[in-house]
């Protein structure tokens, strides 16, 4: 047992202390957080726009169809563009999307972090859009009608009545999407970005030991997800106060 601990300590020194290899993990961790943060923002922005278009179409297509005209055609055109986006993004693996972005679409860009943010953001946006759409559709129709009968117009009803309720409904799913995203960024190493997983890989490639770097990387992801889940739980509890 004593030997085992000594061995463990040696392994720890070799993998993290020698050559200051722990700084690789730290830098990689920062990179993972940066990519995840901006990709989440971009994903939510895309998600809001698409969910608005899709749910407006779903809610209003019957009444607008009767009237016809430019508004209806524009909305149904935008709706089909969004449908195409969702099909393509959800139908292809994110690794392939990342490689296409890096080697084809943004071939001339030397800022690979930005390319990663854009591809993860666009990918996440498709899922967030469906989460938001589900949220908007699940707010009771009566809420919307009540808003309109109080004199709010369509946009006002959305902003003051539907969206706040939707936010509470989608929060757990949004949290889930963030958790998926932070782990999805672990493929950024494919395009040469030194994120947390890549940092662990680089240590592994130089010390030829698998245990320490892999477990360390796993624990860091785990810790982030646990902390984040706790924060969201607290937020959920506060939002629930309004129900009493």
């Amino acid at each position, binding site marked *: 047992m004593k030997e085992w601990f000594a061995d463990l300590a040696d392994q720890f020194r070799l993998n993290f202390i020698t050559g200051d290899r722990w700084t690789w993990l730290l830098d990689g961790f920062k990179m993972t957080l940066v990519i995840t943060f901006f990709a989440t923002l971009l994903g939510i922005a895309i998600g809001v726009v698409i969910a608005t278009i899709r749910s407006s179409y779903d809610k209003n297509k019957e009444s607008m169809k009767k009237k016809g005209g430019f508004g209806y055609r524009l909305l149904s055109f935008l709706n089909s563009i969004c449908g195409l986006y969702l099909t393509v993004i959800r139908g292809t693996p994110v690794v392939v999307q990342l490689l296409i972005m890096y080697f084809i679409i943004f*071939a001339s860009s030397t800022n690979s972090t930005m390319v990663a943010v854009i591809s993860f953001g666009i990918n996440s946006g498709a899922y967030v859009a469906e989460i938001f759409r589900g949220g908007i559709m699940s707010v009771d129709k009566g809420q919307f009608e009540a808003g309109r009968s109080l004199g709010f117009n369509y946009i006002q009803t959305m902003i003051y009545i539907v969206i706040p309720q939707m936010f509470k409904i989608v929060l757990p799913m949004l949290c889930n999407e963030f958790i998926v995203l932070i782990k999805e960024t672990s493929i950024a190493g494919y*395009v040469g970005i*030194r994120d947390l997983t890549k940092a662990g890989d*680089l240590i592994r*490639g130089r010390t030829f030991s698998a245990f320490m770097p892999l477990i360390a990387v796993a624990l860091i992801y785990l810790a982030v997800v646990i902390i984040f889940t706790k924060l969201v739980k607290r937020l959920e509890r506060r939002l629930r106060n309004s129900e009493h």
Partner: protein
Amino acid sequence: MKKSIRIIAVIAALILALGCLAACGGKADNGTTANGNSESAAEAKLTATDGVLVMATNASFPPYEFVGDDGAYAGIDVEIAGLIAEKLGLKLEIQDVEFGSIIGGVQSGKFDMGMAGMTVTDERKESVNFSETYAIGVQSIIVKEGSDIKSFDDFFNADGSVKDIMIGVQQDTTGDIYCSDTVENGGVGEEHVTQFKTGNDAVQALVAGKVDAVIIDNEPAKSYVSVNEGLTILETAYTEEEYAICVSKSNTALLDGINDALASLKAEGKIDEIVGKYITK
């Protein structure tokens, strides 16, 4: 607060359990090899599975190893390995893994040997044994035609600091390890290196202009340059080094077998023949 303590305790328990598993796994392995030796003391067990020689490689490193047009593994290393297996009376089985996983896998006994255009370095020698050298590798610098970079010295400013350049390498290869090292140790520093999963990715990034140069073994470099227009290999190489096969430190019988096989293949001229087939000077 109580809850978080419990979570930490669970995590700690998990780590210990994993550690125990790893430790026990190691012991069990030693046990079986010891038994194997005592049972057939006359004939030491050469490989983990009887009659099969498992070779780990990374098949994106032409002409040493790559997937041929027919979908089968091909290349200098693959052919030499085939002849070695033949000499040892074993069946060759090839496992295509990431380059960085080869040494770890050989060490743990997952693979019998690693053969992937692998350079002998002191750091690697601490983890595995190396056979006799069977080829000489040269780390070359690939740049775009008409690039300002004419030699390794052009990566640096007059005062010795590194220019604002980016070098692409294949992750965990010697090119990566040398380049990522500090300037004093002959590298350019890790902030000037981008590591790609395969050499091909690095070259694609060079073609797209994402990196200014790629440092990779000379033979794959020639293959890459021949298929990508507008690239050229600098006349002055980065380094020269020796390729060898790596074998687990606990398996000296296999190492001896490989060395004997290599020696007789060299004497028969087979190795030069294979190298000549793939590399036209």
